[in-house]
């Protein structure tokens, strides 16, 4: 069956199987920033934005994305540079092996889009669906706090 969706602002018409997941479709189409981790919604490595909300793409049927907008980590940066969350992760060293990073960044972008001044507890809850086996989460939380500040400054302009 055919579906039409927007991936990172590009309209795509794709042939899919009805039982295929969004994760399988996106990786097949070359969006390798979307990682397969557990495949059961536990680790968050496969997170993408679906109509602006972060979801585990391993548990979303590809057909459910028909007519909707998908943003992967590849779609966050623009001509002016990285997304503030990506930039803060980079500067803070909130990465080690990097496998969880795309999903973690996507979850943080959802959080900051819907809550411009989250508390630390809310930041922790915001990334509670994303497992990181290397870093211990401290630097990610610091990075997200920095992104909050910068995005707040941008909003004042």
């Amino acid at each position, binding site marked *: 069956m055919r579906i039409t969706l927007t991936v990172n602002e590009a309209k795509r018409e794709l042939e899919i199987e009805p039982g295929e*997941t969004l994760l399988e479709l996106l990786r097949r189409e070359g969006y390798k920033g979307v990682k397969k981790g557990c495949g059961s919604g536990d680790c968050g490595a496969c*997170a993408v934005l679906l109509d602006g909300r972060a979801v585990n793409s391993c548990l979303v049927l590809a057909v459910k994305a028909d007519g909707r907008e998908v943003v992967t980590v590849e779609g966050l940066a623009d001509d002016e540079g990285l997304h503030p969350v990506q930039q803060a992760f980079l500067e803070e060293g909130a990465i080690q092996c990097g496998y969880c990073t795309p999903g973690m960044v996507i979850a943080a972008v959802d959080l900051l889009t819907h809550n411009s001044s989250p508390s630390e507890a809310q930041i922790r809850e915001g990334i509670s669906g994303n497992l990181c086996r290397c870093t211990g989460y401290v630097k990610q939380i610091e990075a997200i706090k920095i992104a909050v500040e910068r995005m707040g400054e941008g909003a004042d302009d």
Partner: protein
Amino acid sequence: MAVAHVKEYLRPTSLEEVLTSLREGGKGARVIGGGIELVLFSPPDVTTLIDLSELSLSYIKENEAGLAIGATTTLTQIIEHQTVAQYLDGVIVGMLHQVASPLLRNLATIGGSLASANPWSDVIPLFLALDAKVTLFDGKYHSIPLSDLYPTRSHLSGSILTEVLLPVPASGTAASFHQFSRTGFDVALLNCACLVKVDAGRCTVVRIVAGGTPRLGAALPAAAETLMGMELTDETIEQVAHVARESADTRDDRRASAQYRKQLIYVCVKRCLQEIRDRLAEGKQ
């Protein structure tokens, strides 16, 4: 592929079409909301998916009967709704924040949470304690107490769950929910929801529900009966928690032992009732 045996995907635009597709699809047809469980468990007998997302069932409405929530409303949409945040001191939002992760709550629907009847569900015990009602459509609309849906779910055969209604709380009512899990994200080892209505200092309505025992959330009538007509004091709370522990039918599974769960029920009931007492006291000021 994740769900390889699925051959057909339907997205009907009317409830009548859903029923027709269900009849035609027979045993292989499955209704999906967020579709999480379908992908996760990939049941081999499912060949046709009937997606409810085009039925305009994503809504939260306030009417004279209470808060009506459409079946395909996501848990995140409920958390972010201002009226829900005010319902009984935010007890629903407080519970939903403990369900899975934000990523999963963006997908999971309230209809799916109630219809799939997972024994570890946090939603079901609280909604049972709140005396929620569900609307089913089988060609006509029927409203039944949520408690009638379980444990068999026979009402769902040939029906679609379209809405859940949380009744307007009577004055002097407070509710509370507590759960234990190994991590913030894991399913509950045990959860408990209580609702109490107090008239002139005496408890006149009491509902105590425990879930993840490890079976589906169910009322603890002996514990509720102990509190009826009594005042909420340290002594009565202790007594009720004790009866809850003794009367609850807990079992062993790979997550926890029956004995440990009994102790968790005691602690959960106690915390719930203490919180209810505090909330009622705050409400009077």
